[in-house]
């Protein structure tokens, strides 16, 4: 009669180990044409910095435009030959991938359930930027000294 709980315990251990063993780095990027949830006008609504003390978030209000064959990235370039190689990664694995690089203020924005789209902004001969699309018209634009929380206009 004790067999069933023992099996359940073992299954639980197995699932846990299996999930931890997933090499998220090995998930390939594809679908360079992007997806509709990427396209539209996005506005910086929050600066995510490692140490925001004394920093004036002047980037708030900056607008990006991502379209199927072009994009405007005020922190990089305007591109007329765009692509968006991307991959879906489990939400609970995002911090594992970018944890040492993302500010702590980004952590609470990452949905732990479902997946996040990790996309490169590529122009002509390769990538110039990276965006984590979180769903619900929210995303994080990865930049240098800080990252930007961006939200998509409801009527692109």
């Amino acid at each position, binding site marked *: 009669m004790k067999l069933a709980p023992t099996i359940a315990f073992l299954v639980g251990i197995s699932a846990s180990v299996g999930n931890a063993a997933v090499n998220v*780095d090995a998930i390939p990027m594809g679908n360079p044409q992007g997806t509709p949830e990427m396209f539209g006008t996005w506005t910086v609504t929050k600066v995510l910095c490692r140490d925001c003390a*004394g920093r004036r978030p002047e980037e708030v209000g900056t607008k990006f435009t991502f379209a199927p064959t072009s994009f405007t990235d005020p*922190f990089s*370039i305007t591109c007329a030959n765009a692509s968006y190689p991307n991959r879906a990664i489990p939400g609970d694995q995002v911090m594992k991938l970018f944890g040492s*690089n993302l500010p702590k203020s980004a952590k609470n924005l990452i949905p732990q359930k479902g997946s996040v789209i990790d996309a490169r902004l590529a122009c002509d001969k*390769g*990538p110039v*930027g990276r965006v984590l699309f979180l769903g619900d018209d929210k995303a994080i634009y990865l930049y*240098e*000294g800080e990252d930007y929380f961006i939200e998509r206009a409801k009527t692109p």
Partner: protein
Amino acid sequence: MLPPSTGAKLAASAENFLITYGEARYASPPVSDRAFDCSYFVWLVIRTVNPHFDREASGAIAADRLRFQPVLGAPEAGDIVYFPPGPVPYEVKKGRKGNYPGHVAIMVSASEFIGMQSSGVGRVHVPDTWWWPRTKEFYRYIGPTQ
């Protein structure tokens, strides 16, 4: 026709690796060919002309007079751009005066460099607002090639 110079080879390798490692993420210290830092990218590039090149941190590259020669004039394709640790003018202007880590990358033209950036391996068009106002130095690889 003259064979391509070492600089041209390094620039071509950086362009190739922009695609090859386009999915990689920034990680320091490096974890693998899919998660690494800026000096690891430079190491990958230089290895294409010298497979025996030992990986050096960005500051060590700038200090290595045996294999890297300072460039006093305008940089050329294949030169290494080195940003020493220090404040970033773009951030200082916004009130943040702390120091940022050093960085190293490969110039692929006078107006572009390719390196492992915070967002992954990427091309940076310069002059930009974040990188180019920083203190920067250029070095040319003069080590052995094969």
